[in-house]
């Protein structure tokens, strides 16, 4: 097979080449796909800290499982072709003038079409359940049912702050969430475009000025998670992170009380109207000043 000079080849030889490739591919896929799905899949980030993160891992595992046979096929094909069909040393010899085979074309089109449609359909299904942690804009279509705790994420150059309308519009520079709760994150910005990325929770939603970008996440057990900005927003974009915590409900209440203490002195200023320089809780803000005075 490998390295043998060949003249015009009889049809039987071509069938055996093809059969060998298909057989090798079937065996390799049959071995690799379950191994990948079972052992590699669960290792894929972002992990299990929230329902959405778990869904993403599930989605990624399925995609990996579908893609593994594709990779196996290409690996087998190229390894076989590049080794078996080497030119013999010596003068340049032409190969057989094969220009087309409509069966192969049709088979390929059907196979790639099916894979693509399956992946698109599967992804859509996952997405429409509850948004998979991504920002859906001001009118989300994938809304999970039940009670949701509203938390607003305000991006500004260059820090995230958080407001809790259920705690009287309290603003804080720490993100603390109660465990086992569905959270509705309302992400907005005061200036440039930022992106709120809570890595372990599997949440990412761009913060746009004047727009409320909604994302849903259901927390699980208490944990800490990294929050960072995922959209270039100027000088300190790389340092625009603060870390958040998921704590159980009693701890959350304690934290809320402590923050309300801290917030109390600035609350009278915040509650003034926007034209007076205040910032009462709202889904979007158009803060002044727009340019430096003088």
């Amino acid at each position, binding site marked *: 097979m490998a390295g043998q000079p060949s003249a015009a080849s009889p049809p039987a030889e071509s069938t055996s080449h093809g059969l060998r490739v298909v057989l090798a591919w079937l065996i390799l896929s049959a071995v690799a796909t379950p191994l990948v799905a079972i052992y590699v899949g669960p290792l894929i980030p972002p992990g299990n800290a929230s329902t959405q993160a778990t869904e993403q891992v599930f989605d990624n595992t399925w995609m990996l499982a579908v893609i593994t046979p594709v990779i196996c096929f290409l690996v087998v094909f190229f390894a076989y072709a590049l080794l078996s069909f080497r030119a013999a040393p010596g003068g340049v010899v032409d190969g057989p003038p094969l220009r087309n085979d409509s069966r192969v074309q049709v088979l390929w089109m059907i196979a790639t079409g099916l894979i693509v449609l399956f992946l698109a359909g599967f992804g859509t299904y996952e997405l429409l359940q509850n948004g998979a942690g991504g920002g859906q804009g001001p009118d989300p279509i994938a809304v999970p049912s039940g009670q949701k705790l509203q938390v607003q994420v305000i991006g500004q*150059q*260059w820090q995230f702050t958080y407001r809790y309308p259920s705690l009287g519009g309290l603003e804080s520079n720490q993100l603390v969430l109660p465990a086992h709760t569905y959270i509705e994150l309302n992400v907005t910005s005061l200036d440039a475009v930022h992106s709120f990325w809570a890595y372990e929770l599997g949440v990412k939603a761009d913060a746009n000025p004047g727009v409320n970008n909604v994302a849903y996440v259901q927390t699980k057990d208490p944990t800490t998670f990294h929050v960072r900005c995922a959209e270039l927003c100027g000088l300190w974009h790389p340092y625009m992170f603060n870390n958040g915590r998921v704590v159980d409900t009693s701890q959350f209440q304690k934290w809320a009380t402590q923050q309300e203490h801290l917030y109390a002195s*600035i609350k009278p200023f915040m509650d003034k109207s926007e034209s007076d*320089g205040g*910032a009462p809780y709202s889904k979007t803000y158009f803060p002044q*000043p727009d340019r*430096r005075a003088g």
Partner: protein
Amino acid sequence: MRVGVKLLLVAVAVMAAGVVIGFYVSNLTTLAGSPTYSVPVHNVDGHKVVNLELQTVAAVGPKLSPNPDWVSYLIKDQSGQWKRETVWDLPAHATVHVTIYNFDGASGLRNPYLARPQGMVGNRIMVDGKPTDAIDPNDASHTFAVPALGLILAIPGVADDAKNPCGYAPCAMSNAHRTIKFTFHTTTPGHFRWQCFVPCAAGWVYGFGGPMQTIGYMDGFLNVKA
């Protein structure tokens, strides 16, 4: 062309390229940066104590910067000179006493929440000798914030009709100013960036261009070293 001549040309080209690249890289490492200032450390009863004296000015002036109209922070060094350096070496596990003299007028905070001082001892600052736990956000002239340490405070501005406002930096105590004092603690070593949150820069839209986005003016680092 003879081989020798070609070799010479290639050698010249390579050296020229090397020189250009060298200039490029060395310029880039210093462009829009700031020299580091090591703040002197005192030992008080076995604790490390550091005093930071800063001033914020409305226009930095041609002697201190190629952009004379930019706002800036300045730090006072041991000889009493005011320097435009915003990267400071501080010791870890130390107490830092900060005094800020503000010579600039107010322009208002985009997010009024940041006028609530937090992260320093007592969660309050002294403004002109009086302890305060909230500044009027409309009165904010600049902020000093180290987000990674949770330190935020707003600095109130000089009144618009104040007598003897400061022109170009460095400003003298005889110019109209506000005095802010507070104390915070450094803990673990690391690089902590600090910034101002008031849009006090020139330029249209959001006022966050220019000095607000350039280290050496309204942004810098605290290099906390063990």
